[in-house]
């Protein structure tokens, strides 16, 4: 329980390139990696770029890779590392670097816009929505998401495959489709929108081969794969291979 000097290696640079830079920096009791980054800013590197906001694991701004693992810097305690250990902090690899630890995460905002929004049920006035707790809980789990984009960062479908980005929404936004699909009052289907099918056909659900990397890095401990993606896959498949659905589709298409 005291102060010591840690060895940090922080990626410095911008879109044109850069590299790891070494720092010796003080660490106090109870601190997290973000505290150390802030100390570097205040004492040695005033222009070190980093995103952060709430510093309490609630906003999902300070995502980076600490010793190669995608994490929130504000929720990574220094006590999990040995005092002699070199701590390497790099920007999220899946997104283009802007500067230092800041990346261009616009991919995620683009994907968010491609998921059709909640469709309110017709004829139900505001104040008249009735839903049971057990029915909202499934979607509520997914709405815990703080959009830190660590799942998007770690997902191997896009992590080293820029070419897949166009067709693949990533775990966060496939989970958003699942969330809306499980919303007790979402009326998308009545409007002719099949969310399961769109997950498959438009958001690249098929690329996911359920390795659960996303679940592992989720700071909110959301079971993205088990509770969102797999059920979505099952239902999408049910529909695709259900002979009645197949027949119905055929008939409807003809009329």
């Amino acid at each position: 329980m005291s102060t010591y000097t840690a060895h940090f290696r922080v990626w410095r640079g911008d879109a044109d390139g850069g590299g790891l830079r070494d720092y010796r920096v003080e660490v106090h009791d109870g601190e997290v990696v973000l505290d150390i980054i802030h100390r570097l800013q205040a004492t040695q590197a005033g222009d070190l770029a980093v995103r952060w906001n709430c510093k309490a694991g609630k906003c999902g701004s300070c995502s980076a890779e600490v010793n190669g693992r995608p994490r929130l810097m504000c929720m990574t305690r220094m006590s999990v590392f040995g005092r002699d250990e070199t701590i390497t902090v790099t920007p999220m690899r899946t997104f283009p670097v802007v500067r230092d630890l800041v990346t261009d995460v616009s991919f995620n905002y683009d994907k968010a816009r491609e998921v059709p929004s909640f469709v309110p049920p017709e004829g139900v006035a505001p104040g008249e929505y009735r839903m049971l707790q057990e029915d909202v809980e499934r979607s509520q789990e997914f709405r815990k998401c703080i959009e830190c984009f660590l799942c998007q960062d770690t997902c191997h479908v896009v992590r080293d495959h820029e070419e897949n980005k166009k067709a693949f929404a990533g775990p966060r936004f496939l989970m958003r489709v699942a969330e809306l699909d499980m919303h007790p009052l979402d009326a998308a289907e009545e409007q002719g929108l099949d969310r399961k099918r769109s997950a498959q056909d438009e958001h690249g659900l098929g690329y996911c081969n359920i390795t659960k990397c996303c679940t592992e890095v989720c700071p909110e401990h959301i079971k993205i794969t088990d509770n969102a993606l797999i059920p979505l896959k099952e239902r999408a498949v049910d529909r695709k291979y259900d002979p009645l659905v197949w027949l119905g589709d055929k008939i409807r298409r003809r009329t």
Partner: protein
Amino acid sequence: MAQVERHAYDVVVVGAGGAGLRAAIEAREQGMRTAVICKSLFGKAHTVMAEGGIAASMANVNPHDNWQVHFRDTMRGGKFLNQWRMAELHAREAPDRVWELETWGALFDRTKDGRISQRNFGGHEYPRLAHVGDRTGLELIRTLQQKIVSLQQEDHREHGDYEARLKVFQECTVTRVLKEDEGGGTEESAGRGRGGKVSGVFGYVRESGRFFVIEAPAVVLATGGIGKSFKVTSNSWEYTGDGHALALLAGAPLINMEFVQFHPTGMVWPPSVKGILVTESVRGDGGVLRNSEGKRFMFDYVPDVFKEKYAQSEDEGDRWYEDPDNNRRPPELLPRDEVARAINSEVKAGRGSPHGGVFLDVSTRLSAEVIRRKLPSMHHQFKELADVDITAEAMEVGPTCHYVMGGVDVDPDTAAATGVPGLFAAGEVAGGMHGSNRLGGNSLSDLLVFGRRAGLHAAEYTAGLGGARPAVVEWQVDAAAAEALRPFSAEAETVPDGVPENPYTLHQELQQTMNDLVGIIRRQGEMEEALTRLDALRVRARRAGVEGHRQFNPGWHLAIDLRNMLLVSECVARAALERTESRGGHTRDDHPAMDRRWRKLNLVCELSDPADAFGEVSVGRREMDPIRPDLLALFEKDELLKYLTDEELDR
């Protein structure tokens, strides 16, 4: 002439928290081309940290609730200093604002019969807070964010462009509100101060450092609070009082700046998380406060004005959770100012916890399973950050700077700022609604009610101008650019020792000054000392210098934010020095009593010389409008006697 990007919109909203997004949705739905500007990424605003819930008298849990009861609670919580018309509108409109969120996809926790569940909170007579576990703010932000996306999808279908009518400029900072030229056309004669109409905003893109101007006749300030001027705070880095300062610099006055809420329960250990919020829901759901002797000390701190409303014994307080109709609530649920002062006194008396707080215990009150379900993010936060399992042991907590009741002086119905046509303010940056102290849960409802009103009236204002839009004046753009660039050249060459000041150091000194000298308990001598130190900091801030270049440079951003923090800090200190009584979020050691003669007085802060951004602030007194008789009639006369003077009551 400075290199700047130019855009033009009908309405510009500065800030993308609850109030800003709600304002933007409204302005866009009124048909206005709307821009939202925010310092962080879209969806990261400080609103995500709100935990407890949204106060609205939907009466889903207790059928006796209605807007009148909510109004009464709000006025009591604010010690009757509230702008009563705002408190009335807020109480009347909050339920509709919550229900509307459901139509946009929000998923609140439910009652057994499927309605929105409501929880107890300090100062609210009935269970009133719509919530989602203890992450209500996140649900609010996400719902509004997704509503904005759905509007953009509409535009995409219609115009082939998501941003045709509603665009979010994320990671951008506004440094000036621009105003029309009032004649003369020179820096000396024009636009310098009061009266002129808004013509747009000037700002910079954080990522690139590039400057931009958005021409717009209506600007809604929704920038939140000022907590980053204090050392121990629950507020995020964005809370640098930007909107407060932008209003002052544009010539709009601030009111009630002496009232700063210290939330009673922030984390106290480890040091790096000191100040992070521990939600009031912990107490609302049964958590109790104890000192080092194991005593529930809050029973000793029930003030006279609240004596009849709170339990006198632990047994009664405990029974209230199950049978609220026949028992009074435990004193842990007093308004925040009372609880924060009580904790402060216990610690000072030597009955604190090992790290200088008191104990907040829920582990002996609820089962581990219930705690994990009702307070999941508190459980997570303590586990991850302090290595404390709140299902098994007590938390250590102490007061943390949480909220500023003071803000831009606005018209209660339209949210229009006083004295600057085209400027509007909503949410924490607006003053008046909460009086001297805000009740928990009334913030999120405030954001929605007045965010919508600000968006609506900004849209109407713009529509009313027709084609006659105020023009942006070039010298103002150049002056704003020069001001923003100053930290790169600093005034280093002109000062004797030639050393630029480190903005981080200045910020730390400012935070220490405000924390120590204008904090939860105030004294005349200390506040005078604070003003002396603020003077010195202002001089040094002129030479705050930074290295590197303009691309995503946090040192530079901080140097620019310092101007705002210093301005609002001075407002807080000057107003606090002026008000010689104790009320709500303003406690004077040297004037410990509440004084009825101060009840109807607002302190109004203005910039002495609007041309000098590092200049002095002047404080004036203004009488409030008398409370409307039908609203006064909601209270018993005996209660009113505690707050209003005899002459006011005789009227």
